[in-house]
């Protein structure tokens, strides 16, 4: 328990110092997605298409105490008609060991382009959400989340 306490304290110290400096540091996590792998994961979904900003709304708490379960809701301001609807919603992150979080495939029958789930965040980081529309265009938004207790890579107790 005491070992756990000390790592937690160290982590808090790092978090606090980060807040003071105001810059996101790259912590020495054994494996983590880098902006490069994030870009690669996004490219895998969008191909060479242009990703527009807008339409997508991402609801996530700006400050998270426990990164093990972070509620997240994504909605897309777009009609859900046969001619114009949201086909899929893709959630990415910047600093977890893997850049992908989840892919959600909807269709006309969804009626409303909204999905909620709970995710894990290994560090304070940026979340990227991309929505694919039926006309082939991609829309995105991002949100920054501060995490005080990290998930994914912590020791098994």
């Amino acid at each position, binding site marked *: 328990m005491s070992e756990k306490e000390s790592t937690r304290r160290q982590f808090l110290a790092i978090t606090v110092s980060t807040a003071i400096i105001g810059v996101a540091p790259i912590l020495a996590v*054994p*494996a983590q997605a880098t902006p490069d792998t994030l870009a690669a994961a996004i490219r895998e979904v969008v191909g060479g298409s242009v990703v527009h900003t807008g339409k997508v709304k991402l609801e996530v708490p700006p400050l998270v105490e426990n990164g*093990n*379960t*972070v509620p997240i*809701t994504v909605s897309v301001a777009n009609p859900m008609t046969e001619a114009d609807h949201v086909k899929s919603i893709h959630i990415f*992150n910047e600093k*977890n*060991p*893997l850049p*992908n*979080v*989840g*892919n*959600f*495939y*909807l*269709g006309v*029958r*969804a*009626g*409303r382009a*909204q*999905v*909620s*789930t*709970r*995710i*894990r*965040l290994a560090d304070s980081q940026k979340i990227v959400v991309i929505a694919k529309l039926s006309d082939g265009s991609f829309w995105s938004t991002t949100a920054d989340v501060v995490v005080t207790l990290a*998930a*994914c*890579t*912590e*020791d*098994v107790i």
Partner: protein
Amino acid sequence: MAALINVPPKAKRGDIVEIKTLMSHIMETGFRRTAAGELVPRNIITSFSCTYNGVEVFRADLFPAIAANPFITFSTIATESGTFEFHWIGDRGFAESASASITVE
């Protein structure tokens, strides 16, 4: 293994109904280590799907970044009375399903 499903029992034709699903699962990321330093192998649900009277209306690919006991909320248009079937597929041969019925007036 237990699934929790929340589907409104009744709806008017054309209404958008919200479906909430929760499947109990550890969602072991494969990035954690034991005290001895060994990597704990990945054990997650990789795929979730929902069919409405046999037609797929929602599907999701899940990654280790989905929290334990995956909770997914989505919506569909109530078109006709019938059954929703939910399927979760994961590592180590994990396969669970659940169903819920709806009456559309």
